[in-house]
């Protein structure tokens, strides 16, 4: 007896926590962790809608699997970039990477 809105609220809360993490953290790896939280929130949203609206079709679940895949690929490339930036600039603090500023 759980209404759909409960799942949506949890997903919204997780998304907002991730949003706060992306804006407020200094370390680039911490920002990437918060992005993963946001992607998870989106996935919960998708799967909740799939289960409550069209559970016989597999569209929702397939879409959620694709989001999972893309998130994994993006995490891999993002972390490789962070490591490469650390090697060249010796800092992963997002404020220090301002070469293109002004």
């Amino acid at each position, binding site marked *: *007896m*759980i*209404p*759909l*809105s409960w*799942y949506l*609220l*949890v997903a*919204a*809360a*997780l*998304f*907002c*926590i991730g*949003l706060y*993490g992306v*804006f*407020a*953290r*200094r*370390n*680039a*790896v*911490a920002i*990437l*962790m918060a992005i*993963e*939280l946001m992607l*998870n929130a989106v*996935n*919960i949203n998708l*799967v*909740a809608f799939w*289960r*409550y*609206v069209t*559970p*016989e079709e*597999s569209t929702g*679940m*397939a879409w*959620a*699997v*694709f989001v*999972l*895949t*893309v*998130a*994994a*690929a993006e*995490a*891999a*490339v993002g*972390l*490789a*970039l*962070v*490591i490469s930036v650390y090697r060249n600039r*010796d800092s*992963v603090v997002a404020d220090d990477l301002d070469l293109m500023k002004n």
Partner: protein
Amino acid sequence: MFEQILFVLLTIITLGSAIVVVTHRNLFHAALALMVSFAGVAGFYITLDAGFLAAAQLLVYIGAISILIIFAIMMTRRLMQATEQPFNSQRGLSIVGALASLVIMALVIAQYWPIAPNSEVPMASKTILEDAILQGSVAELGRSFVNVDAFVVPFELASVLLLAALVGAILVAWPKTEDQT
């Protein structure tokens, strides 16, 4: 009744560890809390009858991405890391912004799908699925991935994307000179 208790428990675990992820000073503890949060999300998938997705979440996120994140934390540390501040100057504004967006989203949700758990509101409870549909859901998903009218093109594109990410990540992180390893 059990369902609601389980749901509240999962919510506390997931959201609590998510808050630890974005606020904790020690990045390693934040990565550990991220793993707990992923496990909580997998628990949500199980309550939504998406067992395949829950196992995929465990396999991909906890078994692979968490290891990547821990490696990245280890390789980008400096000696004075523990005394660094975790937050930048936008902290106050971002708390306000995040809370504002949460309030707006909650209002929109509550307007279309009411929150009270009684059975007259629309989408108040899950439709009971027959066993046959539940048992065959993974096969249905598999068929939709290779069906020309369904998702074969996104499926192939996702595999090309993974290949590109694999090659790209290796190339980007390859040490240029010997003293960079």
